[in-house]
């Protein structure tokens, strides 16, 4: 089932074109990994899906992005962003307590009942594999957590809103290998319930967790296929060169 369908997407920031005629479908309950070198347009693509690019001045786009068959521009941005959660490259806890971080989205959507909030927070923290580490200190500042814990907190915060799609923007770029493994483990289990789009600089990470993998280069999508296929028999030589580390 197609969850998000992108057709002929072109994006410019001022006069620089960031994405060139990208078309791809994202299926429900898959992990789509997007790999590619810096400045290949991966993050721009991701930020198109929750319309975060539109905050930038000089942003211009052509083409269509459909979410469950509906053009995202005819959806209310708040509803769209509620459905498509995002985890950023660096752990970005808000300057609030652990509890308030996770409860933030729900509160903004009007949930005030303390008991319901507590349930939501507990469920989200468990899904992000953080509950056991923080359950005794929910009221301490989120900045007291380690980098890896902070990133899992950010995942929990995203889950607490009840999204259908989660956009990961290089979620492990600032983490050590052990923390990375924990985040990846969380992602694989989240796939059962959510649709995941993962932008990553780490080719091996895409190989480990991706259902399908897309390769972006200089704003173009070179190819997209099942992850095994991309890593064993890519159709395009450039994909092969990138995966083998000949450039990057």
């Amino acid at each position, binding site marked *: 089932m197609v969850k998000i369908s992108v057709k002929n997407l072109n994006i410019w920031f001022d006069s620089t074109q960031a994405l060139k005629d990208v078309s791809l479908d994202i299926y429900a309950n898959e992990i789509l990994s997007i790999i590619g070198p810096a400045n290949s347009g991966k993050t721009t693509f991701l930020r198109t899906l929750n319309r975060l690019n539109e905050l930038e001045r000089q942003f211009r786009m052509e083409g269509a992005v459909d979410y469950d068959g509906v053009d995202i521009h005819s959806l209310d941005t708040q509803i769209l962003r509620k459905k498509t959660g995002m985890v950023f490259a660096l752990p970005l806890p*808000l300057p609030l307590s652990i509890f308030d971080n996770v409860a933030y989205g729900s509160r*903004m959507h009007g949930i005030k009942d303390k008991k319901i909030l507590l349930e939501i927070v507990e469920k989200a923290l468990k899904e992000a594999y953080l509950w056991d580490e923080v359950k005794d200190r929910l009221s301490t500042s989120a900045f007291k957590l380690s980098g890896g814990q902070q990133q899992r907190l950010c995942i929990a915060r995203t889950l607490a*809103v009840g999204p259908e799609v989660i956009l990961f923007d290089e979620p492990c770029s600032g983490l050590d290998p052990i923390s990375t493994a924990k985040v990846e483990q969380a992602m694989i289990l989240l796939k059962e319930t959510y649709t995941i789009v993962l932008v990553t600089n780490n080719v091996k990470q895409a190989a480990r967790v991706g259902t399908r993998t897309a390769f972006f280069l200089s704003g173009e999508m070179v190819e997209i296929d099942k992850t095994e296929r991309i890593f064993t028999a890519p159709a395009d030589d450039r994909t092969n060169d990138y995966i083998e580390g000949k450039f990057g």
Partner: protein
Amino acid sequence: MRNSQRSQKIAFSLLFSATLLIVVPVGLIIVLIIQKGIPAIDWQFLTDIPRKGMREGGIFPAIVGTLYLVAGAIVFSLPIGLLAAIYLSEYAKDNALNRIIKLAIVNLAGVPSVVYGLFGLAMFVVFFKFGASILSGSLTLGIMILPIIITASREALESVPYSFREVSLSLGASKWQTIRHIVLPNAIPGILTGTILGIGRAAGETAPILFTVAAFYLPKLPKSIFDQAMALPYHLYVISTQVPNVDEKIRYGTALVLLVLVLFMNLIAIVIRYQFRKRKKW
């Protein structure tokens, strides 16, 4: 190597002496005012009305007047200034008109205070017919400190990391929710710094209150905001230049009270700011 060490020493002594040059006069002023003013300070001086052509008695009406004026100026300018700052930093598009508006506000902070005084006279005293009153004086002082509050608030709002806003928006919060729950709480220390500067300026200026509120000699307390009032800076000016044979210690005593009053009001703001800074952790 030797050369760089020498220039290092020269740079250090230049920077150090520049700092000293600033600190020493300030220290001297404070020491002088305390030394000459302390003998005048007693309970009667602080709580009595001026007597015998202001040569004896106390300065209570002037203290009360200054407190009223500063409070009035802040009550008027803090909400308006903050709202304007939020609009300018969060909502206004980056176009030529808005850039001119921002530049104009920054420059308004440099307008001489006597110009604000004349404006207040024409606008509040005459046009709105508030007369010479606490209301006119507070509004004039409020307008004078608006640019300070707007500029400081804008800087405080803009210094909240952009990523916090993105996170909040990405969770489906609206723009106003993001401002209300994320941006504003983290900007409060900076906004209070602007308020402190505003308080100091409003308490100390003579020219803006000269035509709009200040009474030369009014040995009773104001009963409403439409009354005239005495104020410390104007009182100081009067007893220093307009009334002959005022004892030196009364003049310095008045200056000392003004200094302590401003310090005290700043202290309140500093304590609040400290409470908020403790929470800020990034």
